């Protein structure tokens, strides 16, 4: 295991092979292959119900695949026990579609939540780290507000700060701009670019907003019926003769 982890340092941080997942008779993922290089931002596109969010949940072990492999830093997470999986999870940040902030905690306490349990920082150090993170995302004035008292865009920023609290090297975004107005959505896009530059994060972004994703995507992967239709840059997508890709880009315009 240690050797596997050591080798993993030279490997792509995230590699998915022949991933299958069904719910009852409904096949959601049907042999998905995906690899993401260090510091790369890959956008996963597709219509609603094509398994984009399921793919993200499989990557952090929230759901189990029917078959296929998921390697995080070279380590196959399929056979890991809960303690080992949790060690892997500490290196992954996850921004949920609705931010998923804890209702009973303030903005600052939400960001401190993982720090309290996984670091040996003192109360003062923890508070400073949480406040610094929130300030870097423009949320320094709302530390003591409850999640229900801030807007959807602000909730996403707090969710992002919480995802970054343990200094992950992989960041997963589930529909980061959905339900936001165009200006706030663009701001979230800029934050993704900023984080990529500052932290050299490896990111997977699930979205159906292809044009918004152009600003931060290194590569785009389009899913259809649980399979990858095309994997390439936005320019390659635009040049693709595949009728589904053409139609998807046309509908998204």
């Amino acid at each position, binding site marked *: 295991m240690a050797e596997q982890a050591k080798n993993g340092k030279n490997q792509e941080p995230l590699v998915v092979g022949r991933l299958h997942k069904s719910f009852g008779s409904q096949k959601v993922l049907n042999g998905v292959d995906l690899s993401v290089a260090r510091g790369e931002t890959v956008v996963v596109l597709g219509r609603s119900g094509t398994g984009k969010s399921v793919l993200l949940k499989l990557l*952090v072990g*929230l759901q189990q695949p029917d078959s296929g492999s998921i390697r995080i830093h070279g380590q196959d997470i399929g056979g890991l026990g809960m303690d080992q999986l949790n060690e892997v999870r500490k290196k992954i940040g*996850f921004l949920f579609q609705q931010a*998923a*902030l*804890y209702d009973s905690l303030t903005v600052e306490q939400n960001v401190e*939540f993982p720090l309290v*349990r996984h670091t040996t920082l003192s109360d003062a150090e923890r508070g400073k780290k949480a406040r610094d993170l929130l300030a870097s995302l423009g949320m320094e004035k709302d530390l003591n507000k409850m999640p229900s008292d801030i807007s959807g865009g602000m909730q996403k920023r707090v969710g992002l700060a*919480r995802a970054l609290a343990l200094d992950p090297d992989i960041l997963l975004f589930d529909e980061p701009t959905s339900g936001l107005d165009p200006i706030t959505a663009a701001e979230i896009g800029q934050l993704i670019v900023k984080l990529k530059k500052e932290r050299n994060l490896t990111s997977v972004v699930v979205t159906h907003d292809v044009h918004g994703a152009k600003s931060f995507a290194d590569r785009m992967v389009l899913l259809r019926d649980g399979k990858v239709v095309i994997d390439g840059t936005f320019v390659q997508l635009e040049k693709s003769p595949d009728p589904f890709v053409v139609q998807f880009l046309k509908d998204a315009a």
Partner: protein
Amino acid sequence: MSFFEWFGELGLFCGQVVRAAFGAPWEGRELVRQMDSIGSKSFPLVALAGAATGVVLSLQTRESLTRFGAKAMLPAVIVFSLIKESGPVITGLIVSGRVGAGIGAELGSMRVTEQIDAMEVSAVNPYKFLASTRVLACLLMLPLLTLAADASGIFLGWISTTLSHPMTLRLFLHNGLRDATLNDFLPPICKTAVFGLIIGFVSCFQGMRTRGGTEGVGRSATSSVVLSSLFIILADVILVRFIQVVFPS
């Protein structure tokens, strides 16, 4: 889902919660918060219900006892009835209504808004942070709440009695507790700890397996109350017989 599947899953859930409860990190702050939410905030309702039961017992049994010439037994009837059965069951049912619905709805909404997923992704065990703290709080607070219901019931039972046949509280308690032994007090109080476990486990289980948006949250809240009340009544029947056999008066 079949009846047996549900029980099987509940059993697995209880196992996970018990395993999660032992070992660091200790969620002391969350446990205290839950003890306050479950215990302190249920106190007024439980005390009121206990008081009402004491008054009703006094009013209802006085007439019957007078008819059989056993009016002097009234304090003992009130005290024994409250301590051995009315207090524990009323407390269990009231807490299952107030707390069971609260836990079912809170954990249910955390499930459907992906807050529990977010906790797992943060490498925090929700069985520990959410479930074990609530189950432990229910286990600890139910006996204390039962004592409160018993005390307020006995006090209001005395007031109701003394309004028609004046007697001091001291005399009332002396008559009521004269023949009581430790076996009359302790087993019923311990019984309520089992009620607490039932409320905690069933409500957390129903909440954490919620599916189907806000409608699902509503279903979880309702089923938490219905199932925990049902199991409290069934457990009471079994435990009363168990206590009679193991702790004879």
